């Protein structure tokens, strides 16, 4: 029987074969969901789907695209936002 802590379905179960030729199930944490744009909700490119502990091990440049709002907004929404700010600030 498994430890009661691991009996929940919120864990990811992975079957692996051991060197002694046995099948066992390993219990792991699920990966987080795909990062999405804050405005339009499209999945973002260039943001790896890793647990926060693994994200820390990456270089900062590999965690998100290197532009303003990189990793939060998609490129198209970011462009529209910048265009809006330019048009609004320099109107008067």
């Amino acid at each position: 029987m498994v430890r009661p802590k691991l009996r929940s379905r919120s864990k990811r179960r992975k079957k692996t074969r051991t060197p002694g030729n046995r099948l066992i199930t390993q219990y792991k944490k699920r990966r987080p969901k795909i990062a999405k744009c804050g405005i339009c909700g499209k999945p973002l490119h260039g943001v790896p789907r890793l647990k926060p502990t693994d994200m820390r091990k990456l270089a900062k440049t590999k965690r998100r695209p290197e532009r303003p709002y990189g990793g939060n907004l998609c490129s198209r929404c970011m462009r529209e936002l910048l265009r809006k700010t330019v048009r609004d600030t320099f109107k008067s």
Partner: protein
Amino acid sequence: MAALEVGRVCMKVAGREAGKYCVVLKKMDNTFVLITGPKQLTGVKRRRCNVEHLEPTQYSLKISAEAADAAVIKAYDAIGLTKKLSLRLPSPEVMKEIEKKVKEIPKKVEKPKKEKKPEKPKKEEKKEEKPKEEPKEEKPKKKGITIKFKIPTLRKKKPKEEKKVVKKPEKKEVVKKKPVKKPAKKPAKKKPTKKPKKAAKKGKKKK
């Protein structure tokens, strides 16, 4: 909004320089424009840029086409745009370096244009006009031709000389050695390869 003329201050909207200001220096095509920050002021380096990646502002600087970076910085300051856009003027030490580069920059801008466009015609011209352009022709010759010839000549000459004197006796020795070694090695290899496999299978079954 106003069109992208020379001296128009824009914001870059795409890429890693997005959100930074720049100035149009020259119109290249319908799609491309030469821009600069300058890099010391805003962080946008002197480069070609697609028009769709720019958002023009209402401000424009009084600049000649393809102006140097130092002149552009002064033009920013003359209108008082550095305060409005909250830009930091580079330190006087940096400004001196930029002003020194004024003479170098126009050369740098011209060189890539000449190289990119006339490369294909130049190859034809080089063959015809050999005496006229001596320095340009010597470089490719050294890179391409001399290296190619040196290596084969060295390889060909040395072995020829050695073969006559030394290598004939060597060949006979090599032929004799080979048949002796091969039978000795083959059985030695086969035996150890079989043993560990059997041992591994047995070990798995037992466990």
